[in-house]
């Protein structure tokens, strides 16, 4: 068990860099990409609660992003709700959905959990795709205008970036508190030793379910920001590829840490934007990255590359990768 430790100096530098970003890069294009990274980081942090700290590999996390986005756009742009009411209902209802999905998926564990989350997520995708009268089908749903909370104009890219960054700060703080709390610690216990935890009298199911709902809640927050950012949502948001991209962010950065998923989110979003500018075959690249990561660096891209660089440099050092929690190696049951 590793308490998330931040070097104070480097984290202050990182925060300063994040705050100064709109002045450092003057182009709106890059500020917008930074906003995308921030939103993806919230989503990846929430999925990492399940994967890294709970050992529950979900392939349906796009559900919360997509449902919250659909609901907030539908409620505010098509059903006449105000921004605040729309946002609150969207997040509340999506969290409710997480309660149901968590109940169903936690009837199983391991591979069964993965299959159920995938099936539920893809059914939602099918609903968004087919229920055209409500969701606009393949054309998606638009018409949302960004709100003006407290007189801030969110249409301005830099203002929106700070808006999203504030949410990331809150999410990071809450998730860090959660991980260190008794509940979060017992969640990590259920990841490593579910039987022993059960024998000690912990309600493993309840611990996992509460964490699932908590992760769904932050997924919904990311979905709300996603809706404000794009002002549009399509079935693609709910698709398995979105869940897989989010999973990639978590494994790429190194799961089970707080910093990892954020780094992974930046990597994947930037890579996707850069690659899309040159070729249209992002999906093939996504697949190849998955295969390469699993075969050659199962502990994650960042720790894996670090290990490679270390082993290439002449100084022989003890392999530190061993204590990095690996997603793809299951804990012994």
């Amino acid at each position, binding site marked *: 068990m590793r308490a998330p430790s931040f070097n104070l100096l480097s984290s202050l530098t990182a925060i300063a860099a994040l705050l100064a970003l709109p002045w450092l890069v003057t182009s709106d294009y890059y500020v917008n990409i930074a906003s995308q990274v921030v939103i993806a980081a919230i989503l990846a942090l929430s999925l990492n609660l399940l994967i890294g700290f709970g050992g529950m*590999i979900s*392939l349906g996390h796009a559900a919360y992003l997509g449902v919250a986005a659909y609901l907030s756009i539908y409620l505010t742009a098509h059903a006449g709700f105000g921004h605040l009411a729309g946002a609150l209902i969207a997040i509340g209802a999506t969290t409710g959905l997480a309660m149901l999905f968590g109940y*169903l998926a936690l*009837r*199983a564990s*391991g*591979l*069964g959990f*993965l*299959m*159920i989350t*995938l*099936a*539920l997520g*893809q*059914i939602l*995708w*099918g*609903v968004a*795709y*087919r*229920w*055209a*009268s*409500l969701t606009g089908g393949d054309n998606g749903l638009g018409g949302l205008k960004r709100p003006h909370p407290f007189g801030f104009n969110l249409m301005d890219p830099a203002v929106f970036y700070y808006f999203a960054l504030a949410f990331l700060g809150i999410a990071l703080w809450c998730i860090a508190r959660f991980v260190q709390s008794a509940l979060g610690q017992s969640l990590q216990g259920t990841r490593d030793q579910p039987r022993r935890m059960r024998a000690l009298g912990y309600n493993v199911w309840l611990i996992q379910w509460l964490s699932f709902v908590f992760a769904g809640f932050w997924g919904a927050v990311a979905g709300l920001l996603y809706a404000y950012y794009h002002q549009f949502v399509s079935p693609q948001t709910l*698709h*398995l*590829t979105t869940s*897989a991209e989010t*999973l990639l962010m978590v*494994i790429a950065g190194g799961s089970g840490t707080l910093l990892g998923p954020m780094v992974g989110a930046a990597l994947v979003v930037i890579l996707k934007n850069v690659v899309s500018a040159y070729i249209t*075959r992002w*999906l*093939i690249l*996504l*697949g*190849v*990255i*998955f*295969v390469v*990561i*699993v*075969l050659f660096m*199962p502990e994650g891209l960042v720790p894996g590359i670090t290990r490679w660089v270390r082993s290439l440099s002449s100084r022989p050092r003890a392999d530190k990768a061993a204590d990095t929690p690996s*997603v*793809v*190696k*299951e804990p012994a049951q």
Partner: protein
Amino acid sequence: MNFWIIQGLNGLAFGSLLFILASGFSLIFGLMRIVNLSHGAYFMLGAYVGLSAIGAGVNFWIAILIGGGAISILGILIERFILRRLNGQPLAQVLVTLGIAFIIADTCVWIWTGDPRPLPMPRELAGAFRVSNLAFPIYRLFVIGVAFALAAALWFLLERSRLGAMIRAGVDDLAMARAMGIRTSLLFSAVFCLGSALAGAGGVLAGPILSVYPGLDSDMLPLALVVVILGGVGSLLGAFVGSLIIGFIYSYGQALFPDLAYVILFLPMVLVLTLRPTGLFGRQAI
């Protein structure tokens, strides 16, 4: 009344296609504990290969063999050179098959473009079968027949043959089966090859009904998952009954509430997972 019969037959036909896909998926999962997320992509790639074969002038029946054969070779290669390296790491295997599914899906768009392609029906099965004032496409009846024959053949293979006894032993207790001298490594290859061949041939067979389009994989894969969750892991009977249930629900759902056909798929999952998490015919929880 006619409506119910016709939609019932449609459901039976769709369930039959689903069974061809899900039986292989379930066998692979039951024996090897591999959730093969590429299975939907195998199905789609098989259909595209069959389409190209027919485009090259081959007749429909040979195209089914080519589609099934090509995918079984692909399956063997993936099993031997990738999945085997990850033996004993089920989650790593799932992620690899997911990555492969993406690669196959995007490659299909690359080669065969994004437009849906109809796969021509064999001439001898075109037309409709008529009883009084009911008409039903002969091809769909044929597909239903194929699925029932396949179910019988698989049942015979699993329950009555030596190979089947070995497979059942492997499903029940892999370590013990190996200790008894069963060559499980060969068994794994055989089962993965069989499952892939079924997926590929099933894709070609489905072509005239569903046509071939990008996204066919992600349409079919979750249905196969639901079938296995419903029917129970590694159970042939479960895959059969589950496929028919989903086939009926999907068919009636699409005819009665076209918008909600997918929402209705939640219901059997909710019911089964709540009341019987092992699935209808499974002996172990998934």
